[in-house]
């Protein structure tokens, strides 16, 4: 597959949030507005791409039996890096998402891409796979964030659009679950219409 196809696959057919249902925790937690979704999305893209590249570069040296441990350490290293970078340069925004940035370490999506793709492919395809999955995740987070911000506080990216708060519940915990449920259903329907495969089983990890 070409680089472009790899990215599109990550965005649509194998979108980590809506299709694979992986790493949902932050998808509900930080997405009360678009900006937070974007910020966490950036962190995930960074960690996914760097971890993919590292795993791909080291694929000849990592023994099959210890790979999970090695991968976890690689991810934890990159997560610590982005955690410190964001804490230093974006302290205000960081305060709202810090716990979830640390928890990127246990995102199933990252280790599963390393295991399924980067450990078997050279650097360049791994880079695009990481980009695709990371951007797919960011896209999912920003979609959820947009719906919740618009309906919950009548704003988009901090600009007042509606002048009223139509559904306050959307920025509360319950709203996050509702939005994801509905967006997943819409995603499934649209992809089925486009003929891009049946809904995956999903739900594990």
């Amino acid at each position, binding site marked *: 597959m070409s680089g472009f196809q790899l990215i599109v696959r990550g965005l649509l057919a194998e979108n980590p949030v809506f299709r694979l*249902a*992986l*790493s*949902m*925790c*932050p998808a*509900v*937690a930080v997405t009360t507005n678009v900006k937070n979704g974007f910020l966490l999305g950036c962190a995930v893209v960074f960690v996914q791409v760097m971890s993919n590249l590292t795993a791909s570069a080291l694929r000849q040296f990592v023994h099959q039996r210890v790979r999970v*441990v090695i991968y*976890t*350490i690689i991810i*934890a*290293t990159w*997560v*610590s890096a982005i*955690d*410190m970078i964001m804490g230093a340069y974006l302290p205000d925004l960081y305060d709202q998402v810090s*716990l979830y940035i*640390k*928890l990127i*370490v*246990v*995102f*199933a999506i990252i*280790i599963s891409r390393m295991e399924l793709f980067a450990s078997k492919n050279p650097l360049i395809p791994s880079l695009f796979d990481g980009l695709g999955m990371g951007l797919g995740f960011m896209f999912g987070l920003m979609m959820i964030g947009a719906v919740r911000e618009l309906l919950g506080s009548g704003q988009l990216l901090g600009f007042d659009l509606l002048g009223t708060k139509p559904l306050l*519940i959307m920025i*509360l*915990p*319950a*709203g*996050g*679950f*509702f939005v*994801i*449920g*509905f967006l*997943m*259903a*819409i995603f*499934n*329907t649209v992809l*089925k219409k486009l003929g891009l495969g049946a*809904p995956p*089983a*999903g*739900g*594990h*990890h």
Partner: protein
Amino acid sequence: MKKIMLIAAMLAALATSALAGDGLTLKAGSFADAHSIEVEFLSPLSGLEGLEPSHWRVVEASSPDIALPLEKVELAPANPNAARLTFRQNLDMGQPHQVTLASPRGSGKIEVTRNMLAVLLTLFLSAAVINNYVFSRYLGLCVFFGVSQHRDTAVGTGITFTLVMTCSGILSWAVFQFILKPLSLGFLQILVFIGLVACLVQALDTILRKINPVLFKKLGVYLVLITVNCIILAVPLLIADRNFNLAESFFFAVGAGLGFAMALYLMANVRERLAVARVPASFQGLPIAFIVCGLFALAFMGFSGLSLF
């Protein structure tokens, strides 16, 4: 000659103590409500002269330079030995407060802390229901949706998770307080905690396999799920972040675990019914599960009004 000097010294001491007034001595203090502290003396108070707001100085132990503004001092309603200090703003009852009295009638200093049991109970309930991990912190969703299909698996997972969360909470508390903090290696917490959890799960796996094979057969499968799971890692991170002590960490971890187990059990009950319900095609599977979860979260919002102490 020596005797005379001794007597003179004793007389002098007596004179100064008489000058200091009726010698009120502070005994103890406690939080009366959100913005007042009740201070008890060893002897009854006859009046409030010399105990006006200007004679008191109350600070939080963590910021001893900022005196909290006192609004008034009055006699406590039930206890003749006590005075009640009312403040303009709400007190942070989680913090120990230092109360200093400097007045002609006596001086002294006491520390006021909240009842430990109340703190622990609040922490426990807050972790279990008010800030339930699944419904208001959104952690552990992967496992939550993965294993909530059947009640049996839900119970097994719930028990295993509570066990591991408690053990890893305590262990990481010790590592953080005694190793990482003194060496200022706080930035390594992610790496250290994840290694710790992985080792713990491996150890539990081995121990359980040896001492109770029956239980291992039941719970062993869920152990695999645990190592890389956000709900397990979040407990050590939150404990380190909030600087809990040992007892607080324990109750926080147990509360979080039991709250997760309860959420899992509730969800499993609903999903067993959902399996035979007629759900629109595009909502089948995860979408409807998310919407059910949203309804639960809505119900759990009711607990946020719960304020205990």
